[in-house]
């Protein structure tokens, strides 16, 4: 007998999405704002249900769905991002004709990510991965009249589709060598895979497939363009949510299904992690578009998280998993703060309208929109790893685990990169507080303010009171060992 209560978060998210799609058809554009509140409530309910079910362990549907510490933790990450995004989108979708489609796509993408987190079978993992990808392709191109949004969506679609083809090709070899698609059964039958060259081919194809989603260099080409081109609220979902889906899929497939090939993928991830964090930070320094800068900094952060695959001690995995939640709040919030500035520029009709997220738009933001400036400061300092923020705790655990495991070189590279990243984060803060403003003080729209406050609260709570989160991350890491 299947206990459907364990799937309550997923069911809530899908049901909310379907209800919104259905009733949105009969509503006039002016009343459609209600849908945003409905979506946020649904996500909030799912978030509460997920937190309640922490500690449950179960296998369902012929062992294809696994409810464990890892799946619950990542569901928390995805739902937190979905909450930040759907609250902020209330303002973004104001007076839009397509509100219901937007929220349905966001909720379905979240659902796909949640299923990837608990997938215990490659068929389910691939289907859920595609569900989340297809929904985000459509979201990236949501502004149909905006050439940048379409260009970002086109690049995301072409590269995303190629990556899923690579992934499917890799999965087909894993299936061929082991005769099964179930993740625990693959781990048992992996002896043949480890001996034959098929194993190496499969690992390369799978790393390429997941690497596109995780935006590891050299599979990152789409990420800066798509994050810059898409509407800022969607960039927030992509950078904070969709990227984590790549990580949880890689955790499940490489660590749980292919431990027999650990030497191969560990080596590959070591190179990818170092190249990704260095490239991301170096290129971010020269960016003038803030969204693009955040995109490159997001690459760098993915490089830090990928260190978990290299070090592979329980502490490193705890750090990597904790980092995903911290990064969800920091990066999700930073993109929402950018969305606020873009809204300010486009409604005030002042400044650089071609590139509304240009660094110059942040001039004197501390005077014109104090709340947005303050929360942006919290996010960028957290991303840089200033103490008493979520980013600091995450980096502390992850980097010290590398030293403990005898990989001091990796920790040194990571710390040097963090120091470099402080340069472009501090430059943004300088623009916001030390340069004179161009306009007058502007009232913050409530949805943006609420969304920023949720993200700031997440960053600060994880910084000042990390114990429960570390405990949950430890439970999640326990599944992988």
């Amino acid at each position, binding site marked *: 007998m299947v206990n459907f209560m364990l799937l309550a978060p997923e069911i809530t998210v899908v049901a909310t999405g379907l209800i919104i799609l259905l009733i949105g058809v009969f509503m006039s554009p002016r009343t459609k704002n209600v849908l945003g509140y409905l979506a946020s409530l649904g996500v909030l309910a799912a978030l509460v249900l997920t937190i309640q079910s922490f500690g449950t362990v179960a296998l369902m549907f012929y062992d294809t769905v696994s409810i464990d510490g890892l799946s619950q933790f990542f569901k928390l990450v995805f739902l937190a991002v979905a909450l930040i995004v759907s609250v902020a989108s209330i303002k973004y979708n104001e007076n839009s004709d397509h509100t219901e489609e937007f929220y349905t796509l966001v909720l379905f993408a979240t659902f796909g990510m949640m299923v990837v987190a608990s997938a215990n079978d*490659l*068929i389910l993992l*691939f*289907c859920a991965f*595609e569900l989340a990808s*297809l929904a985000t*392709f*459509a979201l990236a*191109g949501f502004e*149909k*009249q905006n*050439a*940048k949004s*379409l*260009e*970002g*969506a*086109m*690049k995301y*679609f*072409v590269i995303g*589709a*190629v990556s*899923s*083809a*690579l992934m*499917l*090709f890799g*999965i*087909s*070899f894993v*299936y*061929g060598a082991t*005769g*099964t*698609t179930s993740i625990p059964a693959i781990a048992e039958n992996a002896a043949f895979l480890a001996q034959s060259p098929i194993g190496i081919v499969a690992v390369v194809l799978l790393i390429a497939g997941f690497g596109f989603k995780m935006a590891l260099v050299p599979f990152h080409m789409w990420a*800066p*363009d798509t994050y*810059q*081109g898409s509407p800022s609220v969607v960039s927030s979902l992509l950078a904070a949510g969709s990227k984590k889906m790549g990580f949880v899929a890689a955790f499940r497939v490489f660590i749980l299904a292919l431990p027999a090939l650990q030497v191969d993928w560990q080596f590959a991830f070591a190179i990818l992690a170092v190249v990704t964090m260095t490239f991301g930070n170096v*290129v971010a320094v*020269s*960016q003038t578009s803030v969204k*693009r800068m955040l995109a490159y900094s997001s690459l760098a952060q993915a490089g830090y998280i990928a260190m978990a695959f290299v070090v592979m001690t329980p502490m490193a995995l705890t750090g990597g998993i904790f980092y995903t939640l911290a990064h969800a709040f920091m990066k999700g919030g930073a993109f929402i703060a950018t969305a606020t500035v873009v809204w300010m520029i486009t409604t005030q009709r002042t400044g650089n309208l071609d590139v509304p997220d240009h660094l110059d738009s942040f001039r004197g933001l501390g005077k014109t929109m104090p709340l947005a400036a303050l929360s942006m400061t919290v996010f960028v300092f957290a991303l840089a790893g200033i103490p008493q923020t979520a980013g600091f705790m995450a980096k502390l655990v992850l980097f010290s685990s590398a030293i403990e495991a005898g990989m001091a070189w990796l920790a040194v590279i990571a710390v040097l990169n963090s120091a470099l990243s402080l340069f472009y984060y501090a430059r943004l803060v300088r623009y916001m507080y030390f340069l004179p403003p161009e306009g007058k003080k502007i009232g913050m729209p409530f949805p943006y303010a609420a969304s920023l406050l949720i993200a700031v609260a997440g960053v600060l709570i994880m910084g000042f009171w990390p114990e429960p989160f570390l405990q949950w991350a430890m439970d999640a890491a326990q599944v992988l060992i």
Partner: protein
Amino acid sequence: MIPLSFYLGLSALLFSIGLYGVMTHKNGIRIIMCIELMLNSANLNLVAFSSYTNTLDGQVFAMFSIALAAAEAAVGFAIFMAIYRMHDKINLDELNILRW
């Protein structure tokens, strides 16, 4: 019975043709066709392995992936339609506003 390696060789060839096409072609429709070629070569692999390992999982997987490929093409064409309405063509190499 045809040996397994023939199927694997054919699918590897199709996959390579698809990947080459994605990288060299400029027209959106051709790129989608090449992506379909890559996905179908993976399906061929799955079905061949399914027959040779005497398990059914591969055939079921192929069914799912055919359906997903159709959905993917639908989303892709929708994006290309929107691009066509704006630029009157879908030459993807001419879309280059976003760059560093």
